[in-house]
């Protein structure tokens, strides 16, 4: 199988503490994987961002290995992206929201729009005869190998086996070009009229947690299996009674003092 065109979708992130614009790590992993794939198959590679071409975060991707970034400025994002990705064999991007309430939905919406399969949480991509074999991440150490035929979207998991290399010289050499400024699709055609909202990250709520009294073995078990979590399931009684159970649990473990 020959992969003729690969596209990587990259987004603009911010540092959670300083708020400074920066690359999204997951997308950078996808970029690094895509560059490696493209180099080993001498394939054409498009690095695409939908948003503001002036965003300083984009320079990060140049330093991380993109020779050129194509920016789509027109709204709606999904439709315009889809229009530009029609004849691409393989689309790579980051898998999930970086933190908080980021949506992380784009790869899925795009897959629906293009009507192609999506494999999320990819750790590793291997080329087989007529398909790609993807190693997928699952919690608690589980992994799964799946095969996918192209064209497809593969979304990379944050723990993928990739090392990022940031080189200033590449940032200086790289280019950012605006692909088009006008929408190639009629705005009213947009089926899922998604309203993207951008807002500052909210402080993560603190989880109230009862101190655990487990043996070393118990801790190990609870880390690798899902049964050993302990606790009680309350499904009897009305809502006040149920709330009473929770309240007394919290009081018992001194997690609240009223």
């Amino acid at each position, binding site marked *: 199988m020959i992969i003729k065109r690969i596209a990587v979708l990259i987004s603009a992130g911010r*540092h959670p503490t*300083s708020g*400074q614009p920066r690359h999204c790590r997951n997308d950078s992993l996808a970029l690094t994987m895509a560059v490696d794939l493209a180099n080993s198959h001498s394939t054409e590679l498009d690095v695409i961002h939908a948003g503001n071409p002036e965003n300083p975060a984009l320079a990060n991707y140049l330093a991380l290995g993109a020779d050129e970034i194509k920016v789509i400025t027109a709204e709606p994002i999904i439709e315009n992206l889809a229009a530009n990705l029609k004849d691409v064999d393989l689309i790579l991007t980051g898998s999930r929201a970086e933190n908080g309430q980021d949506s992380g939905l784009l790869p899925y919406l795009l897959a629906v729009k293009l009507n192609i399969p999506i494999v999320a949480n990819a750790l590793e991509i291997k080329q087989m005869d007529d398909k790609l074999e993807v190693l997928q991440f699952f919690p608690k150490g589980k992994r799964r190998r799946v095969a996918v035929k192209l064209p497809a979207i593969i979304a990379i998991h944050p723990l993928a086996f990739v090392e990022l*290399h940031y*080189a*200033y010289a590449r940032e200086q050499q790289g280019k950012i070009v605006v692909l088009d400024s006008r929408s190639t699709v009629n705005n009213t055609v947009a089926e899922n009229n998604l309203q993207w909202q951008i807002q500052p990250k909210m402080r993560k709520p603190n989880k109230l947690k009862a101190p655990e009294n487990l043996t070393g073995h118990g801790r190990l078990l609870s880390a690798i299996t899902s049964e050993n979590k302990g606790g009680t399931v309350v499904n009897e009684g009305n809502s006040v009674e149920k709330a009473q159970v929770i309240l007394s649990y919290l009081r018992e473990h001194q997690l609240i003092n009223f």
Partner: protein
Amino acid sequence: MWRTGKAAVWSWAQLLTIPKRYFVDLHHVVAREPYIAHTHVATAGGAVAAIFLVALNYGLMHYSIVLNWAIVVATCIMFIGAFFMWLRRRKVPLRLSRGAWNRLPYSLLVFALGLFLVSLPVTSLSNGIAILAILLLLLGSAELALGIGLGGPMKHAVAGLLHLAFHPRQERFSSKLSTGLKSLNLENKEYGINKPSDFQWNQLLGFDACVQCGKCETACPAFAAGQPLNPKKLIQDLVVGLSSGTDANFTGSPYPNIPIGKHAGSPNQTIVPSLIEAQTLWSCTTCRACVQECPMLIEHVDAIVGMRRNLTLTQGGVPGTAQQTLENLRQTATVGGLDRNARYYWAIDLDVKTIQPNTPVDALLVAGEGAFDMRYQRTLRALIKLLKAANVDFAVMGALESDTGDTARRLGDEATFQMLAKRNIATFNTLQFKRIVTADPHVLHSLKNEYPAFGGHYEVLHHTTLLAQLSANGQLKLGKSDETRKLTYHDPCYLARYNNETESPRALLRSVGISIHEMERSGLRGRCCGGGGGAPLTDIPGKQRIPDIRIADASTIGAEVVAVGCPQCTAMLEGVVERPEVLDIAELLAASLENV
């Protein structure tokens, strides 16, 4: 040959500086080992005198008998020198190279003997002896002449003298310190050293001056810890790279764990990894112990950082957690990726001023990254106590402080360093202060020695320097210390070798009645803690850790307390499991305030 290198500023007049630099600056270093200093004076002095006299007597056709006797005397001196050199060569210390260097004393002896016989003013010299003498002379001269031309041991005589004249750090000869790294012009796409010909020609000349004495090797903490670095081999590899060869003829100690004979290079071939492995470069702590020891005044650190720069800037090749650190510096201006507003949280209850534009203060306290570390916060709190006791008008920098970029620069990330330096300078320009104090020698070094290149000129003092001044002029009244345990002081590389400050910390300790028991290697020749140059981040494996070696120095003399003056040293030395207590000078002094 050296012309393959890059241009550097120089003038012919610099040749005139050779004699002074040779006799004063170079012999300063060599004289630390008197045996070799004397044999060198005898051998080289004898040889130069003899050759000069021969030229005078025969070249200018004087044929004077007096001069002839002088030649005899000179060759005798040379003979004696070469003889003692031979004596030492019978049992070669490990740091020395063997091979051609073992032959050298013989060649020199032969040369001296030949010239001696020829010059003997005996007319009835039998033909046999005369021929023998001429033969000996030819053999000896071959070493001198061919050696210089073809890169044998005697090459050092010419390259060494020229190196003294055209040394890339001319300031070193006017008893000024020159330790700051030279900046790259990033706009001109200067991205460090990729191939041997990227060095300036006078740097290449310097490498050729190396006499393979191995003093740098003995001093190098990374070599001692079994990490794959040996500064002597590194310089020789660069020599090999310039003259297109392999390292197979190298007869000294290899880089630990990297066999000899597998690497080769040429002037226009990329150095890493065919000539030198990346892990060799990332093992260096930039402690400058090698530079301090080198009798030929070679600048190893400039070479290492130069090659690191190319790896980092063009390939993003920093290993270990260094990659994350650089990213943190770019995105948050802190090493740890932390909130800059939180840097001075430890001072909230101490009632200290935070500097504001338009409110001048005498001293501005720049705490550095150590301020985020709970251990080092104890030191900083002690320092605040002392500054208050001395009634110093000071303020901390607060949320305005960005990292100085020191770590980024040592890791070769010149771009991030320059970004941070320019940012800090812009901030300093909005503030009014007379001087900067810091408890971190790395902050001290970059602000004081490296910011001037970007237009930031400040008076920057290490806290021990300021406290010593205040104590000397009576502004700070210290009591007697209760400390009765046996105490030693560990010199931070960036305070001692980089800033020549070894006396203030000691004077302060003495002034509170603490006597210092010196460890092996202290002062300007102190042994590194392993914390500099981003080495803890690149974390190249060896057979032991550098701080363990340093703590062993302290334990050997039975020290129960190690006094320090640097957050890096504190963290590195406290990382050793069994060790004496580690206390900053500020902590020891602050404790004495109660006894005033």
